[in-house]
């Protein structure tokens, strides 16, 4: 019985680790593999201690061979396992993209529905730590272009704790993007917290004047922006997409039907961003609901630079979100 009243203080990192531990205990088909998940303890310390608990067969350090070990995850899933593959960061996942697009996302349909690939791929994403151009990508929105995979982006402790098991139980491949700035996020979590659905977006804050749509690492900034907007008398509803593919448009459009104005906050590069897709959907499905054009706050179209002030300028910030929101509420059709 889950005790839903008791709460514990925890972090996003610890919640992820608890989810991994639970999955490993619950089902012998689960194993974790990736670079430095074992002896090193995970490059973000997510899997720290799991090697000692589960042994090196199930907490499996891999060589630097992204294509092969991601592909091996797909093969193992096809052959009855529930693999969790950690790609250290999404920046390196391009090396495995052929396996993801041409095998993981494709085999089910291409084989006429004969095979399931219950694989979860976890990767860190996002900028903000001055890691420069090759270590600061936000590829989750880009991945969301690919049919055949699900993309989830836990932004809260509940989701860090709860999305993994649901994703593993899903017969299709799920990629979980963990914004690296969230690992130290601290807060309270129900002691009995467990699996959560991965089908629905969540309204994180109710509001009347405009809808702020976001996900993952930008949820915190967006929520702070909503606080500041409230101080200025603007009531913003905050929608956390949670899953970027398939998109839960009913929730987004439901909010839009209420507020008639929308700003999307997305750390991806602007052109071809997930934000663009949501704007397109709003155009297609809710054009006559709009009291102002939908706006977006994305990353500048630039390989993320190293210096703090330039990195800050390159990615969405509370102030730019507030600005975009104020401009949006001040426009009229």
């Amino acid at each position, binding site marked *: 019985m889950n005790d839903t009243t008791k709460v514990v203080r925890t972090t996003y990192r610890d919640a992820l680790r608890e989810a991994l531990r639970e999955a490993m205990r619950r089902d012998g*088909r689960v*194993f974790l593999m990736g670079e430095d998940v074992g002896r090193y303890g995970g490059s973000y310390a997510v899997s720290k201690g799991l090697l000692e608990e589960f042994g090196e*067969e*199930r907490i499996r350090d*891999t*060589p630097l*061979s992204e*294509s*092969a*070990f*991601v*592909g*091996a*995850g*797909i*093969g*193992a*899933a*096809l*052959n*009855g*396992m529930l*693999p969790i593959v950690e790609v250290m960061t999404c920046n390196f996942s391009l090396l495995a993209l*052929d*396996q993801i697009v*041409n*095998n993981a996302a494709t*085999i*089910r*349909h*291409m*084989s*006429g*529905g*004969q*095979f*399931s690939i219950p694989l979860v791929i976890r990767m860190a994403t996002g900028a903000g730590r001055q890691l420069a151009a090759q270590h600061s990508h936000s590829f989750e929105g880009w991945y969301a272009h690919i*049919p*055949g995979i*699900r993309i989830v982006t836990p932004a809260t402790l509940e989701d860090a704790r709860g999305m993994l098991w649901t994703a593993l139980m*899903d*017969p*299709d491949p799920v990629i979980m993007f963990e914004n690296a700035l969230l690992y130290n996020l601290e807060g309270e979590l129900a002691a009995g917290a467990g699996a959560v659905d991965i*089908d629905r977006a969540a309204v994180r804050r109710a509001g009347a004047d405009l809808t702020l749509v976001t996900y993952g690492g930008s949820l915190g900034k967006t929520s702070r922006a909503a606080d500041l907007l409230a101080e200025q008398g603007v009531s913003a509803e905050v929608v956390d997409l949670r899953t970027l593919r*398939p998109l839960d448009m009913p929730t987004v459009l439901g909010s839009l039907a209420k507020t008639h104005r929308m700003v999307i906050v997305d750390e991806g590069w602007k052109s071809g961003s997930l934000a663009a897709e949501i704007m397109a959907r709003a155009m297609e499905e809710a054009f006559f609901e709009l009291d102002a054009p939908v706006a977006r706050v994305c990353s500048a179209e630039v390989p993320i630079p190293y210096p703090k002030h330039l990195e800050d300028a390159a990615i969405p910030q509370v102030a730019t979100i507030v600005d975009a929101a104020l401009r949006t509420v001040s426009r009229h059709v």
Partner: protein
Amino acid sequence: MLDRALALKLLGDMLRVRRFEEKCAELYSAGKIRGFLHLYIGEEAVAAGAMRALEPDDAILATYREHGHALMRGIPAGAVMAEMYGKVEGCSRGRGGSMHIFDARARFYGGSAIVGGGLPLAIGFALADKLMGRPRVTACFFGEGAVAEGEFHESLNLASLWKVPALFLCENNLYAMGTALQRSEANTDLCEKARSYKVAARSVDGMDVLAALDATEQAVAEVRAGGGPQFIEFRTYRFRAHSMFDPELYRSKAEVEQWKKRCPIATFVERLQSEGMLDDARLAAMETEVGDEIAAAVAFAEAGSWEPVEQLTRDVYTARAS
């Protein structure tokens, strides 16, 4: 001593594939089969030999040149032919076509058209078996062209490092499309390459079905005994163009003719005849049987149905219960 029943089986396997593919070429010209079509003609001894050494529980991964493998693995010819037609009755529901033969019952996992793309999967298949303590082998076929891909390297290393029960079956037909092996590999000794990962390797005449069988049996035995992965190079040759679009500018007719003299079927027939295991009547009977099977397969495919357009997006994701 050569076992006659086995020999006739092997010959039958090769004949089935040869005639099936000749029919495919014909159907391609007739517009019944479309897309890319890569024939295995000339290389039949490899899959015929290798496949006989594997058990039903083992897993097979193959390339886009895989009709022969599919047939010899026991996928019904009708289901393979219907797949070539793109009919729902095809083993991949018609969705895959010639390059993407899949069959769960036969544990036949593609039909992969990205060169080298099946190798990482094979590691995962074999790892799963190892973790679960299942005494199975994963057999992965690929061409010598795939050896240059990074996936070959990463996969052989992983397989060896983790000692997984994987069998690497390299069909060295000397060309990757128009690129000869010596233009793609600085080191053309593929076994030496495999050994550089500490994977045991052997090279065998891929035009000799008995040699192919024997080598695979030995390798499978090693793998099943827990010795880790094994690599086999089958030296073979494709008699036809790479696909139906290839003008074959890159090799001489004389070279092709030279190799055709070593046709795995003709030479095996000769041998069996000279050893008194096969007479003309028997051979004719076999041809008739194969011909009937193929005719039935074509009829099955012709009679098959097209998937309704409404089902286009089915199976992209598993349907949610709710």
